[in-house]
């Protein structure tokens, strides 16, 4: 009984249970082929786990590569813009113009420039994540109390120590919260991008099932995409917890 109570208080588990219940209600009320039974879908999902893993794996690698590139570019650029007002003045207008444009509109341009393969898809996601990250990091650095810099200056006059002991730990929370937002958006965009010139990816899998009117397959693809999204969120949460323990 106590164990059951413990599980009841797990918000994520409760969320999954609620979604399945809602799904089941929709299935029972609408009685349409478009909404398959949760149990049938789960059975299909388990029996086709290998092919689903291949598609989800392809999407995972694209997003992961985009995140790594975005952090490697966005983090130093954001820090530099936060520290040097002149550079911020020069580049901020560019960011403000590019940031609000829906990046998915650039997909045809990227396809023309970088080909139909993975490169254009990764660059599209990189574009989504990097601006968000750059702005968050820049603002995080700007908001840092100047006092912290005086403190580190009293201990060391080397710039590297200022970055290692003040800026980097201080901006980590900004990096993770911006990743959490932008990874969600980039997954949605990837779903769209994977419908062009590819035969691998969870977006392709879902849309291909939809065109075949195989709704059980389509829903199992949606489950795989949800798991992929949750996996990214869990990893980001886990990294945040371990690298910013002072926040908990």
């Amino acid at each position, binding site marked *: 009984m106590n164990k059951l109570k413990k599980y009841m208080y797990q918000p994520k588990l409760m969320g999954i249970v609620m979604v399945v219940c809602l799904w089941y209600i929709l299935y029972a009320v609408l009685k349409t082929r478009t909404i398959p039974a949760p149990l049938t879908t789960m059975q299909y999902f388990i029996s086709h786990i290998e092919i689903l893993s291949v598609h989800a794996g392809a999407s995972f690698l694209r997003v992961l590569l985009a995140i790594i590139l975005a952090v490697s570019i966005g983090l130093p650029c954001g820090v530099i813009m936060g520290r040097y007002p002149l550079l911020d003045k020069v580049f901020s207008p560019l960011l403000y113009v590019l940031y609000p444009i829906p990046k998915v509109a650039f997909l045809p341009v990227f396809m023309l420039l970088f080909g139909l393969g993975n490169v254009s898809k990764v660059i599209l996601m990189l574009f989504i994540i990097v601006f968000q990250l750059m702005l968050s990091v820049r603002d995080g650095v700007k908001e840092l109390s100047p006092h912290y810099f005086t403190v580190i200056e009293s201990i060391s006059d080397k710039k590297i120590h200022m970055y290692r002991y003040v800026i980097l730990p201080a901006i980590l929370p900004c990096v993770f919260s911006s990743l959490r937002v932008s990874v969600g958006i980039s997954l949605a965009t990837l779903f769209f991008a994977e419908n062009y010139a590819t035969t691998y990816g969870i977006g392709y899998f879902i849309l291909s099932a939809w065109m075949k009117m195989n709704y059980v397959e389509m829903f199992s693809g949606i489950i795989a995409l949800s798991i992929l999204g949750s996996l990214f969120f869990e990893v980001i949460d886990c990294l945040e917890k371990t690298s910013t323990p*002072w926040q908990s």
Partner: protein
Amino acid sequence: MQSFITIENLSYHIGQQKIFNQLTMHLKQGKTYAIIGPSGVGKTTLLHLLAGFIRPQAGEVCVAGELLNKTREKTSFLFQDLGLFPWQTTYEAVQMPLTINGNFTRLEMAKKTEVMLKALDIVQCKDYYPHQLSGGQKQRVALARTLILQPDLLLMDEPTSALDAMTKETIQHVFLELQQRYRMTSVFVTHDIEEAVYLGDIIIVLHSMGRYQLIHNKEPDVILSRETQAFYNQCFHVREQLRIGAKTQ
């Protein structure tokens, strides 16, 4: 005794406002100097000049025979708000100067940190972050961080101003113990005359434009300048008013 800190003809102004004009001061090694004076005369600015955070527009500051044109490794600064980083545990904060210094092995660093944590009685909170510490504990952590490299000059900006009376007394006691152990030259700013008298060997009463009077704490027949006497009277008047206020409440 030769001067450890020499300030020669120092002038410093912020915009149009002159803080110091041709200030000359000699401070001896191993002594504790308390800087007191009315608000806005440049007590903290003087401390920052001694630390090398800011540079004078004219004149020079020499510490241990070297002309000061940047921060020194052997000078430590205890900030008014302590300046503890929210992302560092007590242990990390105390060890940071050793890591930055780079001349110690891992084992040496661990040993030195443990010794300092014990000396300041903060071993039990070595894994705590600043928000998990009490005011007194934070003060001890900051003090441990400033002393770990055994500086020859310790500068403190109102070190006990944010503490309650009991903690203040404990920290003052800790400071006196550490001062006896490490024999460093200390300069601190305070608004509390009693603290200045209790901790300082020599009190620097700073007036506007960098005029000052040095009062040797142990000298019984000191003749106070008119300005110093006025400042003292003002402080004691305020304290008397506070005492009367407290009684009537």
